[in-house]
């Protein structure tokens, strides 16, 4: 395996700003939303959606930026979408080792955590090797989340979607509150209802992409 670099050295190697990976308007919307979901006192926040492509990862990242920027918390962004991980690409970090290796015991928490320059840490999904559902079951039966909660002020999970993913619901049950990201004008209500029904606790909804696509001149006509 060779000699692993120290965490402090890795910060210098990857001075990527998490706020650069997400649109400022998303951060501002999540700043307002955070105030309604326990603000700085939230400990385990899950971000999920009914289907893919609704903006989960961006919202989870924005929530982490808000926790650090608005509340001076030290957040951990935890990627649990083993099927289609995207945070390493978005944040310019290593894809592995990550959560999969951590659950399997291949690495320690310190080795799995990749700090970013703004005091935000991230654990990417890692290489699940086709056993994603098993990994989530293992997390459920372990104290990993408690250990992470002790080390970080807040753990924000980028969860898999609830529909079309066998372990989406199981992963979402590990977090409270759960933010359900809904793409405005895209996601059918029937699928949203089906996703909500799969959870034991009702999530809160964050509507994404609510701005009208009408040109400004048409909107001005409709307002007069």
């Amino acid at each position, binding site marked *: 395996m060779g000699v692993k670099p120290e965490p402090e050295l890795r910060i210098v190697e990857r001075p990527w700003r998490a706020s650069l990976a997400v649109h400022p308007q998303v951060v501002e919307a999540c700043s307002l939303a955070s105030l309604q979901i326990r603000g700085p006192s939230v400990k385990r926040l899950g971000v999920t959606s009914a289907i893919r492509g609704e903006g989960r990862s961006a919202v989870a990242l924005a929530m982490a930026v808000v926790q650090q920027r608005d509340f001076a918390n030290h957040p951990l962004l935890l990627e649990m979408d083993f099927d289609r991980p995207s945070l390493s690409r978005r944040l310019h970090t290593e894809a592995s080792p990550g959560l999969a290796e951590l659950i399997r015991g291949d690495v320690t928490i310190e080795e799995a955590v990749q700090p970013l320059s703004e005091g935000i840490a991230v654990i990417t999904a890692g290489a699940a090797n086709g056993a994603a559902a098993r990994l989530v079951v293992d997390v459920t039966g372990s104290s990993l989340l408690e250990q992470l909660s002790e080390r970080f002020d807040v753990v924000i999970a980028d969860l898999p979607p609830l529909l079309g993913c066998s372990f989406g619901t199981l992963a979402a049950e590990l977090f409270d509150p759960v933010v359900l990201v*809904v793409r405005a004008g895209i996601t059918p209500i029937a699928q949203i209802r089906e996703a909500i029904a799969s959870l034991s606790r009702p999530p809160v909804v964050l509507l994404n992409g609510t701005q009208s696509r009408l040109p400004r001149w048409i909107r001005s006509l409709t307002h007069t």
Partner: protein
Amino acid sequence: MIRYLETFYRHRLLTVTPLILAVGITVGIALAQPRMYESSARIWFYGAALTGTAPGQPYTSAAEQQSGVLRELLNSRTFCTKVGHRGPLAGYLASGSTIPSNVVAALGARLGLARFTGPSGSVDERVYDVLSQKIEVTTIGPQVVAIRFAAPDPGVAQGTLQALVAQFSDEILGNLHGQAQAAVDFFNQQVKTQAAEVSADNDKVAAYVKAHPKAGASDADLVSLQHTAELASQQYDQSLLELDQAKSDLAAETSAAGAGFRAIDAPNLPDRPTGFLGLVLRALAAGILAGLFISGFTVLALTAADSSLRRPEEVRGALGLRTVGSIPRVRQRWG
């Protein structure tokens, strides 16, 4: 209305594509049409030749009468066949070439579909189909009729129209010649009869004078016989005059001028295709209309099928859940 507009702007590609496709297809079909060369002629009718005023119509111009006659002739197979063989049309069709009757047939021929390219029926049948469908006869004045014919070959267009005018003239002359010949025959018979009567009356006068040498102007019988002979002679002279007139009419109606019309504009040889720009513009308009219809239907269908949430205030009513916020649409790909 706003909801439909939002659907349109949300699915711009999906809703605009039918419009683009429809315009592309219709204009493409128009561009695929063979170039048609149209020959035209104008005929001046200066006398009613075949028909009189139709019953119930107070006045019908010579042009209207004769254009009606021409249209009727164009609906007869015999006339069309004569025109086709008199001009180049029959040979043109016999060589395997086609003159498409409509846009679909033209497209089929251009695409090489057997149904539209191969001979369908005998040459005479195809000549009849082409002439009865493609010859345009229009009245443009009280005495002038315009005739048009379009074909992919300019020589065929001109030659066919020339043959049509010539055959139409022959039909009229043939009809008039028959009438004039009947008149000559009738007056010939009249003259012969009158000549015999004159001869008989003169013989009676001569016989009476011979039997009554002393009969003079006071003899009533002789005066009566002489009067009868004189009347017969006058009728004979009249019949001779009418026979001369009938022969004159017959001679006149065997010449081309006797047909009662002349071509003031002879069929021309077209030097450029006609109607192509108009066809493309019509196709463009049709494509836009069809595309708008399909696009409009698409917007309606998408709007009706859309069951998504659009505004935060809709969430509680639809899901019974609390909304913690809303994110405006931003131009960024999210995970």
